[in-house]
């Protein structure tokens, strides 16, 4: 009985947290996108190198790349890097190049195995070929508005600003995995990012869009310094902050188009992200579980049994969460059908289970390869041979403590 009331208490705490997330999203989106308005002259816009690490056919890849060709910006280059000329993304970039012959678009095909982070491995050749003083790292699954570059570069007029990142919203879902993905991006991820910024002034760096000066990136060791960490975006932001520069979370939203995801892909991504946050946050990661009121309310079934009271409680919490998700979805123009929000509790249940899985295991599968994640998300190779793996983990454990 007491445990049931404890569960109610934590669930209410989670709901209050969720309410604060909604308020944060609301107030953050209301703000003016930029404190600077001094870049009226076209000459003031510096040239930008956009780095696009490509691997396989992301949903909407053609449109995503095309949106970068429509930028209302005087001078920029797009460097698309693939590891293999047979990658299907190669054909798509070629098609884009033909469609926009006046744009500076390059395809860099280079197999790079310098580090263990496959995204950084893909970025390194493009970074080497880039020529402009501002670097934008932009994932292949983002679609942007015409004024995206102009709005983001304005923050970097201030030399105290070292990195500009953006809020993301998930759009375009057509399958169950993408419904879950977009619901999660638009509620938990967006809500948490805004909440941390509003209440604790902690800007989360979203790797899907990072604009910075080349000189600042070089000062923190260049991309090569992050080749062996899983959360390269987080640590780039941390290093920038260590230099005394500010990381800006621009409220100009970018679209993350997820159309045809399966459940497996959704689970794999959030398991990876969960493990990453567990390694970065440590015990603070518990807050994420408390921030999942639907999952907490479901645990009442364990302590109370399948009683009418427990079901009523779960239904009420799920309804409140669903309405909140719907409200945020409306605010960010997620374009999800209202019925999709009925899936929200099932998504939260799955995310709750993934939370436990992420702390139970310290390996991660990324691009078909398995890695061991150490402290600060440092990656190590993982052998499928279990006895070798245990020896490796032991040596790794000593190595981490020795340094």
């Amino acid at each position, binding site marked *: 009985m007491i445990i049931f009331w404890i569960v109610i208490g934590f669930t209410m705490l989670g709901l209050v947290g969720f309410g604060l997330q909604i308020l944060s999203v609301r107030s953050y989106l209301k703000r003016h996108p930029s404190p600077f308005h001094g870049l009226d002259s076209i000459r003031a816009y510096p040239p930008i190198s956009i780095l696009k690490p490509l691997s396989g056919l992301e949903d909407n*890849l053609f449109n995503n790349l095309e949106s970068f060709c429509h930028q209302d910006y005087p001078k920029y280059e797009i460097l698309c890097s693939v590891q293999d000329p047979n990658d299907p993304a190669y*054909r*798509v970039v070629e*098609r884009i190049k033909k469609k926009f012959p006046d744009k500076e678009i390059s395809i860099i095909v280079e197999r790079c195995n310098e580090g263990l982070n496959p995204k950084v491995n893909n970025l390194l050749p493009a970074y080497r070929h880039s020529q402009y003083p501002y670097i934008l790292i932009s994932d292949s699954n983002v679609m942007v508005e015409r004024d995206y570059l102009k709005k983001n570069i304005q923050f970097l007029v201030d030399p105290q600003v070292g990195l500009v990142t953006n809020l993301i919203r998930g759009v375009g879902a057509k399958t169950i995995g993408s419904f879950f993905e977009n619901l999660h991006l638009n509620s938990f991820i967006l809500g948490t990012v805004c909440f941390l910024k509003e209440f604790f002034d902690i800007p989360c760096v979203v790797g899907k869009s990072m604009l910075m000066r080349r000189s600042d990136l070089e000062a923190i060791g260049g991309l090569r310094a992050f080749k062996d960490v899983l959360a390269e975006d987080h640590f780039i932001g941390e290093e920038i902050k260590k230099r005394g520069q500010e990381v800006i979370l621009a409220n100009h939203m970018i679209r993350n188009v997820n159309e045809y995801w399966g459940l497996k892909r959704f689970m794999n991504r959030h398991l990876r992200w969960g493990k990453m946050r567990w390694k970065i946050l440590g015990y603070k990661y518990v807050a994420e579980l408390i921030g999942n009121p639907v999952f907490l309310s479901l645990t009442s079934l364990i302590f109370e049994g399948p009683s009418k009271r427990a079901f009523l409680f779960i239904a009420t919490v799920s309804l409140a969460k669903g309405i909140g998700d719907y409200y945020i979805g409306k605010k960010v123009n997620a374009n999800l059908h209202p019925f999709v929000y009925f899936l929200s509790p099932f998504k939260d249940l799955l995310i709750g289970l993934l939370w436990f899985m992420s702390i139970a295991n310290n390996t991660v599968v*990324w691009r078909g390869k398995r890695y061991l994640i150490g402290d600060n998300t440092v990656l190590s190779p993982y052998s499928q041979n279990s006895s070798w793996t245990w020896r490796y983990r032991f040596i790794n454990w000593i190595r981490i403590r020795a340094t």
Partner: protein
Amino acid sequence: MLLCDFHIHTTYSDGSVELRRAIDLFGQAGFDVIAITDHVVSGETAFGKLANRFRFSIQEDNFNSYFENIVEEGRRAWDRYRMLVLPGIEITKSSFSSNQSAHVLLIDIKTFVSASWDFEKIFLEAKKQDALIIACHPHHSSELMVDTLYLWNHRKKYARYIDAWEIANRDDVFNVISLKRYPYIAGSDFHRVRHLYSWKTMLNCEKEIEAIKQCIRYNRGVAITLFRDGIPF
């Protein structure tokens, strides 16, 4: 080389993806040529009657709107992706016996062709319209409930009408086509999004309807490839 898929179904028959979305999906993936080939089912069998009753088949009364929609979407696909879209149908004669079942693609078709006609009449009508005639999944398949072996079993009679045979369909490869040295192509038999990743045809010719038809008929500069998605980050 042109990346092509000549075997695509939409919600006009039993596909799960609408025509516009299917075209966007292939356009986004960098394809050069596709053919939309929804089923025209023979109403002679119980299976065919059901398919016609529940509109899992193109019928004479909606063929024109189907055709016009493909042409209109084809214009959009050309403007947007520089992708050529050919209108087609899949003549579907299915029964409970493999030896009585056969499916044939008619590509670049202009007017309705009924699946209730006998094969000779269908082929002659297709030739009159200068359509490509492709025998699809002609041998034992891993995905079909009932194999479609009729044309293969009667190849001596019908091979002279057929422009090409599907040597690969979705995940299956039919080595008998290679052994008989018949002209070949490969297609996805696309019904669901995941079928995008399957066997495809590569053609070494101009991106132009007549050149494509010639290339397939003479079967020079034709290759097949297993199209995979890579692994996104």
